């Protein structure tokens, strides 16, 4: 005899069939109700899970990343990489694993081996570049010759990590390896996939050349990179020194239209007053005209906030949108 029947008083030596029948019917209805509720719960859970999946992945990464014991942290992060081989958080996971291994000075080879294996398996050009750059900076801290060898190998390779070459150019220039640095900047301009990337590399290359007294080549490169408003800063300086004052002021206006904080820095108002005396009031109009002259269509996307709510940037058509991209962390 089922215990529940006994407990509920349906069996006291004999079965109360009528009551039991009613209870079974009610129970069946309840069972059907429960099934429906479970289905709703599972369905809504799935929907909620889908909505919050990005957030869950990030939480998973941050939990794995903050495990206190290094060996366990590495293990958790490797599980994360295995579970999310395509998520952008994998870049941070690679870095965290490497840093954890490299904390132990005796594990240098193991740390490098981890990076090399990750680079070999990674398909994303940009992430591979990040890992190579990580390897370069690490090698530089222990053996600069090995770091230079790696940089030289990368310069001759088919790698297309635009940022990697920019960072290497910047680093090598700072560390006095000027020739190699120039090669890196040129390579970054070559492999840049669009005008934004090419001009970003060009600005850094132009500034580097100018700092090292190669103003003619700097001028050429900066003019080619004028799509990037930062080109205007060094370009304005060189042109002013060459006596091409109107062109210099135009370069500075271009700079200030995109980087408002530079207006005082380059003393634009004073220079404008020298070149166009009596017309200073026009300056604000010229800057504004340039400032709103962009005409690129926003390619929308869907992004999640910290509470799991999704925002589709395409939904704001019909309303003006101000989108600030920052890096508060």
């Amino acid at each position, binding site marked *: 005899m089922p215990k529940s029947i006994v407990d509920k008083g349906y069996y006291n030596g004999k079965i109360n069939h009528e009551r039991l029948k009613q209870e079974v019917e009610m129970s069946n209805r309840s069972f059907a109700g429960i099934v429906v509720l479970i289905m709703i719960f599972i369905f809504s859970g799935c929907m909620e899970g889908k909505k919050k999946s990005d957030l869950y992945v990030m939480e998973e990464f*941050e939990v794995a990343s903050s495990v206190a014991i290094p060996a366990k942290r590495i293990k958790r992060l490797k599980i994360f990489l295995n579970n999310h081989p395509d998520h952008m958080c994998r870049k941070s996971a690679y870095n965290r694993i490497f840093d954890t291994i490299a904390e132990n000075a005796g594990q240098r080879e193991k740390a490098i081996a981890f990076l090399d294996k990750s680079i070999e398996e990674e398909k994303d050009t940009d992430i591979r570049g990040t890992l190579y750059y990580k390897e370069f900076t690490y090698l530089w801290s222990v053996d600069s010759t090995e770091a230079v060898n790696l940089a030289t190998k990368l310069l001759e390779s088919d790698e297309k990590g635009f940022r990697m070459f920019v960072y290497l150019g910047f680093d090598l220039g700072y560390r006095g390896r000027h020739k190699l640095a120039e090669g890196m900047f040129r390579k970054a301009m070559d492999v840049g996939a669009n005008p934004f990337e090419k001009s970003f590399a060009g600005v850094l290359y132009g500034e580097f050349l100018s700092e090292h007294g190669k103003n003619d080549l700097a001028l050429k490169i900066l003019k080619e990179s004028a799509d990037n408003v930062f080109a205007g800063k060094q370009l304005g300086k060189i042109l002013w020194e060459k006596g091409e004052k109107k062109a210099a002021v135009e370069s500075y206006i271009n700079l200030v239209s995109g980087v408002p904080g530079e207006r005082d820095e380059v003393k634009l108002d004073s220079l404008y007053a020298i070149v166009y005396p009596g017309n200073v009031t026009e300056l604000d109009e010229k800057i504004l005209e340039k400032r709103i002259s962009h005409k690129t269509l926003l390619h929308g996307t869907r992004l999640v906030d910290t509470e799991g709510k999704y925002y589709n940037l395409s939904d704001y058509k019909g309303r003006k949108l101000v989108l600030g991209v*920052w890096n508060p962390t």
Partner: protein
Amino acid sequence: MERLKKMENELGFKLLLINLKGYLNKTKAIIKEKDITIPILLDCESYSRGVLHVDYTPTTFIIDKNGVIRSRLVGGCKDFEKIMVEVIKSI
């Protein structure tokens, strides 16, 4: 930016922030610490770099009603809000 947010209805725009790095807990901590009310979106797909081509932060985009980026401002300055209002009104 919080001062600018108060002008959303008056000037007819929506203000959103994207955290380039997409770190969840650090972003939550900053929101709490600085009492930020502007929605902060986490960039887990490298949208800012890959699509918006952001190489400097902060970068602010002002997009018109047709979904066209009309202005792209890098950094800030003492009269940044005033500049933003001028741009928003002009597009």
